[in-house]
Structure formats: structure tokens, C-alpha cells
């Protein structure tokens, strides 16, 4: 273990943290509006294949990010229509979205398997900051998507906590009937939140395919969308705490191979299991806490709202 390997580890921690944070932030927005979307894995996959397609076609990561956001947003719209507009079971619809997204991305990406990498997200022109020892590579030499993720995290917090739009969205997620009575359109709010969630999952998929996997392959998401879902629970539906969780879970993903080069005798299988084990632990702590004070979860999550059944 030396400076190079530790810096290398921290660079990876941020990269995996960004990957998880983008997807988790999207899921957080949807859940705050009361819609559970278990389709994150499928939306990431669609975003990933869209970004790679775009990279082959246009060669621009920025265009790739936009295309990935649109593609995953459209997929999220399917969930919004089924689970929000039609009021179907959110769990069933979300799971179907994952299966559908993984299958569709594999089908669309057939001819991109094993192609050489397309252009990655580059770094910001920060000049000499990037040359700084230790801090330079860890913070300032990161792709600009990392900064975008941080900005989106702040923006999400600001909108949710400090604006009327955010208040309306949270109200819909806590008590749809009351929000409805107060003149907030439950359907519009929820559909919009789910689509925003899809767009962010698409961003995450684009970052995964362009910068981390450096290529498209079927099943490239490899369960990381599920870690993002768990992360929202870990983060207690708060953007800030979710960011810390993203760095923690991202750190575990980054540690898996690195621990071995550090000569630490821990089974890599055990490390890869940890994000889920921690989430289960957090759920246990939450459920014990919630006996004494209100749960952090949006009260109306998972429940379809129909005015006539009020």
C-alpha cells in the first residue's frame, strides 16, 4: 500500500460513488413523490446502450448523456403510465421494467458487444488544480459527470426542501389525498417525478458504459441498479445522506479488487455482499427507530392514488 495505490482507490471510490449516486438520486425523487420504481436496473441498461449507440454515431459524450437520459426517461414513462396513471401495482410494474429494460437493451445492443470503447466523459479544464498532489487526481481529474452529480444532488435538495414545487412533490408522496385537496395534481407530479428518476438512471447508465465498463455488453449493469435502490433507503430519502451512502457503497465496490493488492486476506465475495448486508442492517435500525418516531419513508410510497377511492 503506497500513495499511488491509495490515490487509485480513492479515484475509484468517487467514480463508483457517482455511478450509484446518479441512479439513487433519481429513485429518491420518484419515491419522494410516492412512487417506488424497481426498474432502475433496466433504465440504467437502456441508458447505457443509448449512450454507446450515441457514442458510435456522434462521438460526443454530452450527446450520449442526453440521449441516455431521453431513452431511460421514456422507459420510466412506461412505469409512470402503468403504475401512476392506471394505478397498477408499483412493485410488479417496476420489476417488469427491469426485465424489459435488460432484455430490450441486450437486443438493441447486439451489434455493439465487444466494440472498442467510444469517447469517455472528459475532465473539466481546471488547469493546475488537476496537478495537485493526491487531491488533484481524486477530485479535480474526475470526469465532469462527477461534478454534475454533485450539482444535481444539491439541486435536488434545494428543490425538494426550499421550493413550492418540492413541497408539492413531498406532499403528494406523504398524503396524496390531502395534496389533491390542496390543488396539487397527484398524477402530473408523480409522472414527472418518475420521468426525472428515469433520466437520472439513464445518466448513471451512460457513465457506467462510457467511463467504467468502457464498452457495451449485455448485463453490463450487473445488479448495480439494485444497490442504488438500497442506497435510497440507506440515505433515509435525503440527498445529502444518500451522497454519503453512495461514497460508502461505491467505496465497497472499489475495495473489492484493491483489498487483494493490499494483501488483505478478506474474501472478495464477502466484500461484494456488504452493500446489501449494510442495507439490511439499516432497515433493521430504521424499523426499531420508527416505533418511537415517524419513519423516514414517504408515507404514501407504493400506494396508487385514485380520487374516487379517497
Amino acid at each position: 500500500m503506497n500513495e499511488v495505490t491509495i490515490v487509485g482507490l480513492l479515484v475509484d471510490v468517487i467514480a463508483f460513488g457517482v455511478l450509484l449516486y446518479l441512479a439513487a438520486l433519481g429513485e429518491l425523487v420518484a419515491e419522494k413523490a410516492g412512487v417506488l420504481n424497481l426498474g432502475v436496473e433496466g433504465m440504467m441498461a437502456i441508458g447505457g446502450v443509448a449512450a454507446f449507440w450515441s457514442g458510435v454515431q456522434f462521438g460526443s459524450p454530452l450527446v450520449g448523456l442526453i440521449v441516455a437520459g431521453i431513452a431511460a426517461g421514456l422507459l420510466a414513462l412506461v412505469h409512470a403510465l402503468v403504475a401512476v396513471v392506471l394505478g397498477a401495482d408499483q412493485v410488479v410494474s417496476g420489476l417488469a421494467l427491469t426485465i424489459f429494460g435488460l432484455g430490450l437493451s441486450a437486443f438493441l445492443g447486439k451489434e455493439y458487444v465487444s466494440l472498442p470503447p467510444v469517447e469517455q466523459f472528459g475532465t473539466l479544464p481546471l488547469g493546475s488544480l488537476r496537478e495537485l498532489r493526491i487531491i488533484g487526481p481524486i477530485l479535480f481529474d474526475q470526469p465532469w459527470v462527477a461534478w454534475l452529480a454533485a450539482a444535481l444532488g444539491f439541486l435536488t435538495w434545494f428543490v425538494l426542501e426550499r421550493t413550492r414545487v418540492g413541497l408539492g412533490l413531498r406532499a403528494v408522496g406523504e398524503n396524496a389525498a390531502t395534496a389533491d385537496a390542496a390543488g396539487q395534481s397527484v398524477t402530473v407530479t408523480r409522472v414527472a417525478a418518475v420521468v426525472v428518476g428515469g433520466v437520472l438512471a439513464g445518466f448513471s447508465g451512460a457513465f457506467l458504459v462510457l467511463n467504467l465498463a468502457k464498452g457495451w455488453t449485455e448485463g453490463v449493469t450487473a445488479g448495480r441498479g439494485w444497490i442504488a435502490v438500497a442506497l435510497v433507503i440507506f440515505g433515509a430519502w435525503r440527498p445529502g445522506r444518500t451522497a454519503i451512502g453512495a461514497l460508502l457503497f461505491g467505496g465497497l465496490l472499489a475495495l473489492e479488487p484493491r483489498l487483494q493488492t493490499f494483501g488483505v486476506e478478506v474474501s472478495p465475495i464477502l466484500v461484494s455482499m456488504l452493500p446489501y448486508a449494510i442495507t439490511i442492517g439499516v432497515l433493521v435500525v430504521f424499523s426499531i427507530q420508527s416505533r418511537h418516531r415517524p419513519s423516514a419513508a414517504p408515507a404514501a410510497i407504493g400506494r396508487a392514488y385514485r380520487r374516487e377511492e379517497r
Partner: protein
Amino acid sequence: MTRTMKILIAFLAAFGLIAAACGSSTAGSDDEGTDGAVASDDAGSETESDDAMEEGSDVKAAFVMVAPVGDAGWNFMHDKGRIGAEAATGVETAFVEAIPEGGAEFDNAVQQFIDDGFNVIFTTSFGYMDATERFAAENPDVVFEHISGFKQNDTNFGNTFGRMYQPRYIAGMAAGAATESNKIGYVGAFPIPEVIRGINAFALGVAATNPDATVEVVWTSTWFDPTVEGNSAQALIDAGADVLTMHQDSTATGQAITDAGGTFIGYHSDMSEQVGAYLTAPVWNWTPRYSEVIESVKAGNYQPGSYWGGMADGVVDITIPDSSPVAADMQKVKDDIISGDFDVFDTGDVVDQDGNVIISNGVVQTELTDPFDPSRVVAAEGDALNDGVLLTMSFFVENVVGSPAG
């Protein structure tokens, strides 16, 4: 929930499943653009049968693959073997890809092939072993050849594998000569005998050309996940490795070492098209073995067995890179392996990480047991080296850094 809602959900779920199925079975060997080595590939064969080139032969061969064939790895090489065997024997062949191990998809695919009159079925993933054994018992008129397993019966079910450790040794020679940092990285999937054997053979090859170099191993716990593979490769690069190789199914390790300006030694197939830092690769060539099995079925004299072919049989191979300073030595070892004058583990001392001599000039120096069944002794002290020792190998040789237990 209203009736309409239920129908809608069912429809959506069904649509999802259909799309997922499309994703896994819509084949088409569309790799011509990505790998120059597949000049003879026939696009769009899918699960449809290709036209039999030889009229009158009623032998038809089918292949079941665990992942998409377009991955430049394990399945890609099996598909090349299928195409090669079709050309060599003139029989009709077909394949299905992305069939999970231990699932109903496998049963459906194999049953469909049997119903369609296929009478030789190759199942090309380890996890198909038990299901293949069951199908063989139920369908005595169909020959089943399972790849990379160890089960067989007396009539219609055999297994095939290749001595990949032989070209791995030669690849190690090239790596030892290429490294400047004396640190070579090895990205491995799982700590099982097949992978450990390959690492040891590679490390012995490294020792032959560079006694000062070490081979550092990182386990990924996955056969195929480019993100983890690339991340593991980067960890090895950060730890000082300037030459990388791998036992994985993607080219992610090669991408990472290319970006770092080092040298890559591939696996499975010639990856020179995909990877800039490519030097050479131990490769599979299933055509001769597939052709042999198909020909024996045509002639009606198929005998099941445990086939473990080596470089002499052409099942495994390696291209000697002219640019390597030890190219002549590599060529000599290759010739000696093919002629039988040399094999990897029966020459000199094979010493484990603790300094114990395990094998000395082909004689086992200490009792060795099966790691999956410690009560089973595969070789006693003083026994001659046998394939059982190789097939259960669970120790690392002395110049490997890492844990053979994962």
C-alpha cells in the same frame, strides 16, 4: 384492482418477458466488423439451421452456449469451432446462446433440438453438466458431449476439455521477458483448479524467462463483468504491474493496460483487433475436437470418454509474437510440448508459496487431496504426476502473489 388493470399488468409483464427472451435468443454472429479472425463467419444463422453442405448425411449437430457468442471470449470461440466443424464435416449445425445454467431454458432448448432431429448436442458450459447427464440418460439415441466438466456414461455422454495450461506457460515466458517492473498482473475469475492451474503454468513460464518477476493475482468473483475486470486491472496497474493477463470473458483488462501504456496478454481468442497493447494470447480451437466427435457419430462408433486435448491435438494454441526477445525460446517450448518432450508441471521443481516442493521432476513429493473432497487422495508421496493432480490443483507456485483460496 380492477380487471382492466390486471390485464394491463399481465400484458406489460408478458411484453417484458418476450423482450428479454428476444434479447437472449436473437443471435446472428455479427462479429465480422469487430474481429478480423472470423472471416468464415456466417451472419444471421441464429437458432435456424444452416443448410447442410452434404446431402444425405442425417447427422445434425447442435450447440448450447451460456452467453452471447459475440463476446470475443469463451462462447465466441465455441461458435468459431461450430462453424469450423460444419465446414470440415459437412453436417448441419445450429446453436442457441445466452442459455442460463440450471434453468428451464436449457431443458427447452435441448428438447427442441432433439425434437428437430439433432443427434449430437454439445453443451459448452460447466454448469450444464448435470442436466446434460439427465438428457443423455433419457435420450439414448442422441450423443451428448459436455465441455469443461467431468461426468460421462458408457454409451452417449462424454466430456471434453483442453490443456490450456500449456499455452499459458508459453504466454508466461513472453510476459517475463516483457515486464520492466518485474510485476505481472493476473485478473482471475474464481479460485477453482482450472484457473489456478492456468495461473501456475503462466507463473512457471514467467520464472523461465525472468526469475525476479512475480505474478500478482486479483480475483473478480465473476466470469464476465467488464466494470469489475477493468477495475481489478487498474488496481494491479496502480500496484506496479506493467504486463497484464486474465482469465475472464471480456477485454476490459486489455483496455485498462492499453490506457496505462503497458503490455497485454489475452485469453480465449486473438484480441489484437480490440486491444492496442496486445502481445499474444493462449487461444481455444474447438474445430478439431468437434469435427472428431461429429465424424465418430457419422461413422457410428462414438465412444464417450474424458477427452483432455493439448497443443498436440490443436485444441489449444498460442501465436509466437515475433517482437518478443524470447520468441525463439517460446517456439522451442511449443515444439517440445507438441512433440511430448516437455510438459509444464513435470519438469524441475514445482514449489508452492510456502517453499514446499510439491512436484519434483514429475514425482509428487507430498500427499495431495481433492479440495472439494479432502478425504480423496489424488496422489500420494512418491507417485508419478497424473492428471488428477492437475485437475484438483489448489496451491499457488512460489512466484505468485495472492491467495489461492480467494
